[in-house]
């Protein structure tokens, strides 16, 4: 169910209404029913039901066994096997083509005349999210961070809570237990906050993201015709499209959940004010980063293998270098995994994995040199101008890496980058060229004003919760803000053919 459709709106309103009408002790059970409806609404098949059940029963069972046989050796095996089952299913459903293309490439390289066909499996929605969520749950029980849930139906709700099925965020059992299974009364403040957040999310998606999508799609579909500055603008637009689409979805999700009194963890702050790529990733898809940190990066860094490697290199190269090695090796593994999680294709591994790692590695390694140069040239790095330069640099680097994310194949991405170097800056000034790609002058004006609003709100968001602040003002101001949002969505939202074509980028994961 796409979040901007009437279907979702209808579903959310009915769910919220029934949620508050029925007896409080049945609330969680009702949420489970509506979540399963959401899960299978369009993609019901016996096979999909089996996929979902495998993850549910594995994680629920593993939790109970691990808790029962605490401190015994068997627990470790249960942990490993259950994680492998869930991971295996995820890789089977999502990454089969990654293996097939790799084998095909290898066959080509070795001159073997055999090619395997790609497979297209219809995976249940949200599987990339709840697979990792449930792995986190099992590990948390193993680590003693949380108690296992004995009731399989409650476990099922934690896994399938419908707001998180389309684009996250990643939730933790400890965080959610009381919220999901608690009794919630209707709260007017939550309702107003949630409603405004939903509208803000829809504004981001329908007014900004869908508009950007039209421009981006046109350029990427024909990058030989639209080369040079068209590609540069499209690459810069795509990152904004991705951000407004993804963070807008999260706003809608969190708003709906908030109305029901269930707070979800924030997934974005204001990434475009980041001065480095490292900082950007602290503000982008935050819950994924936190998940990887707790369940992959930390255990890897603390593992005997990495620690012994550190000791070995310390003897040869000294403390500083060995520290870097024990940091960057687990980090490289983590970034490759982030790339794989984003999709079973090399484009994702390069864009959201390896390139990000290279940027972070260079930032860290070159930082002392940059410091020296700045000192020698007497450059004050805390001025507005320097910070602005750093933010723009980060944005451009990120935009460049996301060319691979948007392109269909690595070859296509390289073709796009080659065509980017055509020299045609006049298209920025001739008042006609840019308006031939599906967005007219009015669209551009709406876009620019909306982006200014987005950036101003983003800046304020860094200091305080903007929506909360709006609701501390008097009633006239509050409703003016809400009506402005609603009317701009209705008037400037993209509902044309471009709208149908643009799908939710993060839904495929």
């Amino acid at each position, binding site marked *: 169910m796409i979040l901007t459709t009437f279907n979702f709106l209808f579903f959310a309103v009915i769910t919220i209404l029934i949620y508050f009408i029925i007896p409080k002790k049945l609330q969680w059970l009702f949420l489970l029913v509506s979540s399963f409806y959401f899960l299978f609404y369009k993609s019901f098949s016996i096979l999909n039901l089996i996929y979902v059940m495998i993850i549910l029963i594995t994680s629920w069972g593993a939790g109970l066994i691990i808790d029962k046989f605490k401190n015994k050796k068997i627990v470790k095996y249960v942990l490993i096997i259950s994680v492998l089952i869930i991971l295996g299913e995820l890789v089977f459903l999502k990454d089969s083509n990654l293996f097939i293309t790799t084998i095909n490439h290898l066959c080509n390289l070795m001159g073997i005349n055999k090619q395997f066909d790609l497979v297209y499996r219809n995976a249940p929605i949200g599987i990339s999210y709840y697979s990792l969520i449930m792995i986190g749950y099992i590990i948390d029980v193993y680590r003693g961070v949380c108690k296992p849930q004995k009731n399989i139906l409650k476990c099922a709700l934690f896994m399938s809570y419908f707001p998180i099925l389309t684009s996250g965020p990643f939730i933790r059992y400890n965080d959610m237990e009381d919220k999901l299974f608690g009794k919630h009364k209707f709260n007017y403040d939550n309702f107003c906050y949630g409603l405004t957040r939903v509208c803000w999310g829809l504004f981001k998606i329908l007014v900004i993201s869908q508009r950007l999508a039209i421009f981006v799609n046109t350029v990427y579909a024909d990058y030989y015709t639209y080369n040079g500055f068209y590609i540069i603008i499209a690459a810069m637009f795509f990152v904004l499209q991705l951000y407004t689409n993804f963070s807008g979805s999260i706003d809608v999700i969190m708003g709906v959940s908030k109305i029901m009194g269930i707070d979800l963890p924030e997934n974005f702050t204001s990434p475009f004010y980041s001065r480095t790529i490292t900082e950007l990733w602290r503000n982008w898809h935050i819950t994924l980063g936190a998940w990887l940190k*707790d369940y992959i990066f930390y255990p890897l*860094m*603390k593992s005997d293998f990495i620690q012994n490697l550190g000791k070995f290199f310390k003897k040869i190269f000294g403390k500083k270098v060995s520290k870097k090695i024990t940091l960057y090796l687990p980090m490289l593994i983590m970034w490759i995994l982030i790339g794989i999680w984003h999709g079973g294709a090399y484009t994702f591994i390069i864009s959201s994995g390896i390139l990000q790692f290279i940027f972070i590695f260079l930032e860290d390694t070159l930082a002392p040199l940059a410091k020296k140069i700045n000192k020698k040239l007497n450059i004050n790095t805390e001025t507005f101008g320097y910070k602005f330069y750093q933010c723009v640099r980060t944005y451009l680097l990120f935009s460049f890496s996301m060319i691979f994310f948007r392109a269909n194949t690595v070859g296509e991405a390289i073709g796009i980058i080659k065509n980017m170097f055509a020299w045609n800056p006049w298209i920025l000034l001739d008042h006609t060229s840019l308006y031939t790609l599906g967005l007219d002058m009015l669209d551009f004006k709406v876009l620019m004003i909306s982006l200014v609003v987005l950036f101003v709100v983003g800046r304020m968001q860094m200091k305080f919760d903007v929506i909360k602040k709006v609701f501390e003002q008097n009633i006239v101001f509050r409703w003016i803000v809400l009506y402005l949002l609603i009317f701009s969505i209705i008037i400037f939202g993209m509902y044309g053919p471009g709208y149908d074509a643009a799908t939710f980028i993060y839904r495929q994961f």
Partner: protein
Amino acid sequence: MKREEIFERLNNVFRDVFDDESITVSEKTTSADIEDWDSLEHINLIVAVEQEFGIKFNMGEVTTMKNVGEMVNIIESRVK
């Protein structure tokens, strides 16, 4: 081992790991108070603390401890 003694030894570990002689940790110190204490440095700190006190933190503790006070609680319970 007394709590004060743990704090004293912990202070040296912090100063060594973060290369900053001006650090003095207290019960309420968190990663937000020390500039270089980010997620990348956290494990280096944890391993250094483990070596100093000859103990092992489990991963649950590593990911959930909220401030230095909680870290000291764990150390205190292990070295008794």
